[in-house]
């Protein structure tokens, strides 16, 4: 089996551009997903069933259907409602954000509910409102606790962003597939893409580990 380094070199600029877009998609997905997820997670733990049910449904839908389908719906259905010509990158960011928001919401919910209820009681007994207690006591502790699962979600999102290539967002997998189509080669494009994903996820987990250690109080 020969391995053609020359076509990798030829495609290097595209793969680099693709990697940058993969990063861009993932970072936007993570940021928007985390903010949305926090509110959805808080919404789900509201005791009033009528208020919490939309959040429950949201999570059920986005966790219960394939990301692939969500990307197609957003790209061909939702985005054209707002802008005339649909756009793979915009659709990708939206779909990834909405999808990760559902998972992040569950992570936040479990993190908040894992904090001993004595913490809320102590805060309230000191005269804090529910919102103050959440902000100063519960969420900071929950946040520290959810870094590992949140890290998992970020890594999953980074890899899942490859699905966006089906709507022609020119990220890493898009260029790898293009390379495969042009030269009919399998190992060069897909191994290269795999290696790049691997480097990205390893760097990400290294950064998350450091964050976790920095936030430890003991």
């Amino acid at each position, binding site marked *: 089996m020969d391995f053609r380094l020359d076509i990798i070199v030829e495609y290097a600029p595209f793969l680099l551009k693709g990697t940058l877009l993969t990063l861009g998609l993932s970072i936007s997905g993570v940021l928007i997903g985390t903010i949305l997820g926090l509110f959805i997670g808080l919404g789900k733990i509201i005791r009033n069933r009528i208020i919490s049910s939309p959040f429950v449904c949201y999570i059920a839908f986005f966790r219960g259907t394939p990301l692939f389908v969500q990307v197609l719906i957003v790209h061909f259905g939702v985005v054209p409602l707002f802008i005339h010509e649909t756009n793979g990158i915009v659709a990708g960011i939206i779909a990834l954000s909405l999808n990760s928001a559902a998972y992040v919401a569950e992570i936040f919910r479990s993190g908040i509910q894992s904090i001993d209820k*004595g*913490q809320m009681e*102590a*805060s309230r*007994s*000191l005269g*804090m409102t529910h919102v103050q207690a959440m902000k*100063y006591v519960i969420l*900071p502790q929950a946040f520290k606790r959810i870094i590992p699962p949140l890290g998992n979600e970020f890594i999953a999102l980074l890899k899942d962003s490859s699905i966006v290539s089906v709507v022609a967002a020119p990220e890493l997998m898009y260029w790898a597939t293009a390379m495969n189509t042009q030269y009919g080669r399998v190992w060069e494009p897909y191994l290269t893409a795999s290696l790049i994903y691997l480097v990205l996820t390893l760097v990400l987990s290294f950064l998350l580990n450091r964050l976790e250690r920095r936030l430890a109080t003991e």
Partner: protein
Amino acid sequence: MIKVEQLKKSFGENEVLKNINVEVKSREVVVVIGPSGSGKSTFLRCINRLESITEGRIYIEGVDITDKTTDINQVRTEVGMVFQQFNLFPHKTVIENIMLSPIKVRKVAKDQAREKGMELLRKVGLEDKANVYPDSLSGGQKQRIAIARALAMEPKIMLFDEPTSALDPEMVGEVLEVMKQLAKEGMTMIVVTHEMGFAREVGDRVIFMDGGYIVEENVPSEIFTNPKEERTKSFLSKVL
């Protein structure tokens, strides 16, 4: 100062408080004793509405705290509470634990809150621990910090919910010492405890609860040496 009228509390079908009537005067130390499951902790938690009240009225300095229009957060700033499990905030240092509520709720300036916090730490004998995290402290130290944290809000009443029950025996004394000091300074206190020595020495009045009722209440010298009710006698014979 505190007036509890016909207080009832149910958890679903289970009625844990059945018609409680108590009055606590200013500067009085009331000790609540009784077997586990008698409702004493629930009673205490109703007083700052950590538990919702099923029926009855509770007045604190004339304010009806069972009234829906009463600002319960305001009431709680006047009523300090100390828990069996300390409930210190593990993500904050000792001094930050103490300063948090004065700054966020009372809007006290930071320097002032710190100064007051250090003063309270001196009072409980832990000023050298100001900048450590609670996890590095012993149980007795944690509870003394929790008392200082409650005092930082300058409450008029202090509630203690079995403050020494989670402590190793050798640490019980240091916490009781702080509480005795507080009583001596004239703090109004309601203490749920199994420390009969403390009840006898510091309590102005002892309430014996069983099965959701106040079975008997009297000054400690009477209730410990000459209990009237059969249930009180049998309980005291087991714990004394």
